[in-house]
């Protein structure tokens, strides 16, 4: 399961009357509500030592090999947006979850829920994009399934993909391996996917010149692996919930503090502008083609060079460091010299009033 670690949502509250008895949209935000959903509804019945690690992918010993297994379901609206569609998103998303565990992806499954009335030309574009993304990553879609539901019961189409990959003992980055003295890098500018989809969704009259960053991150991981090997302590792709949620999960899993420098975080002008207008924080906006890497400070230069040697990592940057203080928390040093914490969001970001 890819929803976050539980410790980060661990404030105990004697539940007041606002407690809920059914699913709300906020349960899907990747923030504290998602964490509570896993903790309260899923783990009591499905819990086991493998699942309890709550990584993006699980690592299983099968025969003599270590296999990474990951699954993800895609419900994006609209189905097509600048820079991609739900098809390549579903391939890249699951493959990236495998790659972040250090796995080399081998094969995918794809399950479709199709809504009555979905035009074939939309479906064709989606499946074509899936095929292209799989070929680019060098994996096959080995098995699949389709179901059709009545009109109104799905938003055009939903896709689930699962993937397996091979893991070697020498390269096992993990969310709990970050340690004080590491630096935090990101491979590229943040927030493009979330804002591109939001703009494509309509309802807001603003135009942004922005494409989703949807991409397979395997090549970046390979370059880091060649250059740094086991010095790559942690890799994560900050998708739903954005960089802020991902770093909070890592801080909790590794029991370390993370200190970010505001001016160093690459945020495209168009993303910053849209967020400014909507009252969003770009650190919580989804990415689909960016990774965050934790490596020892002494290897920061090598990691940067490795990332920048690939087109996807041209704008890679060091954005912060891991500290022994304020464990489990992410702190941002503002340009002016103040500090603030960057917490998990309680639910979805909501546009403000004025």
């Amino acid at each position, binding site marked *: 399961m890819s929803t976050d670690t539980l410790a980060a949502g661990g404030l105990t509250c004697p539940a007041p009357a*606002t407690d809920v008895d059914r699913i709300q949209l906020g349960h899907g935000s990747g923030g504290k509500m998602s964490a509570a959903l896993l903790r309260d509804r899923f783990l009591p019945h499905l819990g086991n030592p493998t699942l309890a690690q709550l990584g993006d992918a699980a690592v299983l010993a099968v025969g003599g090999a270590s296999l990474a297994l990951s699954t993800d379901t895609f419900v994006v609206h609209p189905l097509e947006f600048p820079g991609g569609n739900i098809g390549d998103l579903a391939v890249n998303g699951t493959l990236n979850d495998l790659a972040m565990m250090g796995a080399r992806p081998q094969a995918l499954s794809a399950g479709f829920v199709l809504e009555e009335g979905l035009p074939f030309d939309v479906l064709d574009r989606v499946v074509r994009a899936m095929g292209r993304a799989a070929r680019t990553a060098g994996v096959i879609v080995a098995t699949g399934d389709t179901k059709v539901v009545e009109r109104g019961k799905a938003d055009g189409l939903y896709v689930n993909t699962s993937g397996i990959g091979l893991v070697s003992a020498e390269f096992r980055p993990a969310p709990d391996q970050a340690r004080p003295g590491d630096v935090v890098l990101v491979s590229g500018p943040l927030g493009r996917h979330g804002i591109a989809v939001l703009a494509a969704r309509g309802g807001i009259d603003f135009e942004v010149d922005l494409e989703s960053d949807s991409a397979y991150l395997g090549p970046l991981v390979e370059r880091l692996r060649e250059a740094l090997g086991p010095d790559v302590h942690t890799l994560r792709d900050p998708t739903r919930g954005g960089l802020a949620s991902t770093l909070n999960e890592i801080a909790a899993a590794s029991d370390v503090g993370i200190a970010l420098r505001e001016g160093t975080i690459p945020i495209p002008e168009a993303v910053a502008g849209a967020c400014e207008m909507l009252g969003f924080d770009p650190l919580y906006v989804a990415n689909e083609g960016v990774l965050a890497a934790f490596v020892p400070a002494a290897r920061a230069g090598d990691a940067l060079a490795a990332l920048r040697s690939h087109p996807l990592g041209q704008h890679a940057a060091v954005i912060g460091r891991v500290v022994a203080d304020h464990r489990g928390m992410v702190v941002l040093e503002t340009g002016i010299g103040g500090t603030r914490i960057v917490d998990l969001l309680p639910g979805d970001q909501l546009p403000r009033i004025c």
Partner: protein
Amino acid sequence: MKYLNEYRDPVLARRLIEQIRREATRPWVLMEVCGGQTHTIVRQGLDALLEGAVEMVHGPGCPVCVTPLEQIDRALALAARPDVVFTSFGDMLRVPGSECDLHQIRARGGNVRIVYSPLDAVELARRTPDRHVVFFAVGFETTAPANAMAVWRARELGLDNFSVLVSHVTVPPAMTAILESSDNRVQGFLAAGHVCTVMGWTEYEPIAARYRVPIVVTGFEPLDLLEGMLLAVRQLEQGRHEVENQYVRSVRRDGNQPAQELISQVFELVDRSWRGIGAIPRSGLGLREEFARYDAERRFALDGIRTVEPAECRAGDVLRGVLKPMDCPAFGRLCTPEHPLGAPMVSSEGACAAYYNYGRFRASLPV
């Protein structure tokens, strides 16, 4: 971002901080009126950088926070009706009513939609003639012109399936109420730049004179706020109490007159109760009689609302600047953004949410 980054320059900010520290011979207590200003201050850590020179207390200017509980409960009752599409700014969805919030109503089947402009709600009504669209018209003078325009437009289109649930409030009566209260600590105000963009600042002149407080019309970026503080501190040090305008790039003394005319054509001054503060005479805007058919409270029978406010919530003290969010016994323990007791913990402009989301590290709370 052009026209924004210029107002976030770290070098200039540090220079302003030093200047304030040099000029302040004692710690002054200033209130920033608007919740947007509160968030900049806490987000950038300006309050900590000015410790000992300026103490910022946070004002009532968070529309979500001061919307009275009975209006939230009315909104929930409307949103639960099968014949209603309830539209609102996103901020309102998580505000706790007596029993639940709009998110929960939506999860139970209510048709609740976020809109980015009240005119989108009018458009929705035009496109769905078989449903009644209600827009939750909240906010200060800043949102009043657009909300007035929505009502105006609905009448122009002859729509009979559109109405607004009004909970508009105005700033000057709230400032007066704060200054009149026996436990007031505020020595100077940073007035809300966007409210003044609409209204100008003539309303503040009698307040500054009568209560002998400096009032500086101030913007929302770090440099705006620091400059506003410097101007207020300078007045206090010199024993002056005037209305000054820091936000010159947006505000004129007379404000935006077409917007004011629109407001007064659609709305009139009414008594309004403020959540956590209580009733303030002539502190709100209500629809004029000629627009009564667009008033959701008159269109739907919404009587019999019984409100229940959690006893532990001290939002009123926070909104009046008497209590710092972190000093509230419920803060971070009984009351968190996931389980808010009061609206200031919810809204993106709420003071409690600002402290919780940005400041918990400094407050060294248990985590």
